[in-house]
């Protein structure tokens, strides 16, 4: 069983209220050295068989069609799960 991991992040110019709330909570807990936080999404797609470039291309297409909204988000990574993080 192969796996494709997809990371989707809010576009840099989009205000990320969740990230803002997270960094505020971090500061209250004493993690004040972290000046910013942005919250994104990680998807894991399972695939019967080995993940090759064609599968990654299809996964990217799926990411751009459904998993992300191009108005507010970027697909920042599409990779086979075995790749080094």
């Amino acid at each position, binding site marked *: 069983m192969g796996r494709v991991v997809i990371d989707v992040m809010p576009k840099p110019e*989009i*205000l990320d*209220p969740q990230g803002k*709330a997270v960094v505020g909570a971090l500061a209250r807990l004493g993690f004040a050295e972290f000046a910013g936080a942005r919250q994104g999404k990680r998807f894991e797609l399972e695939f019967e068989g080995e993940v090759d470039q064609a599968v990654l291309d299809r996964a990217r297409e799926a990411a751009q069609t*459904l998993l992300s*909204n191009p*108005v507010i988000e970027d697909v920042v990574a599409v990779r086979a799960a075995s790749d080094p993080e």
Partner: protein
Amino acid sequence: MRIGVVTFPGSLDDRDAVRAVRIAGGTPVSLWHDDADIKGVDAVVLPGGFSYGDYLRCGAIARFSPVMNEIIRLAGPPDQVSSGLPVLGICNGFQVLTESHLLPGALVRNEKQQFICRDQKLRIERTSTAWTNGYAEGQEIVIPLKNGEGGFIADESTLDRLEGEGRVVARYLDVNPNGSRRDIAGISNASGTVVGLMPHPEHATEAGYGPEANNGTDGLAFFTSALQGVLSA
């Protein structure tokens, strides 16, 4: 005059939208998300709620439902001047319309994170739409607003284009409740057939049941407008 109201799994305000159509004098027709047949209706309302549990993004999964594929086809390209099927998306319905790219921009989590429920004052700025022709330009109305992800955003050039083309249908007055850019509460496509609105006119259509201002019927004209528009078409 038959106006369809779509029910998605997780829709909340479909029954109130059906009731609003009836009070306005139209014939409501219930439409089902999994059925591509829209039963020949003259216009469609996409109601508020949490379609598909707001999973993935609000409206994102509803956008790919069979009924939406048909509505998107009949509504026509967003920039065309000729008129397609009139569609009003309220709250979650507005989110479905932006996810469908029938309207530009996106709706994101409220600036201050919290779900907001209040009687909201608006100014109607575009009356040449299928859904607002019964209002006077500049008319101020009060209808309920209730959303967690109602912040309207778009890039500056899109916002400038919407303003320049007169496609801002309604703007928040007194309070911007959710951080929407330029206080935008509702927008339309180029022809004015497709309108998205974050507050809820369907909850303000019968005296005694809406906000106290103006007997609580300030939302009714969205639905009577559609009947007028369809009649004159």
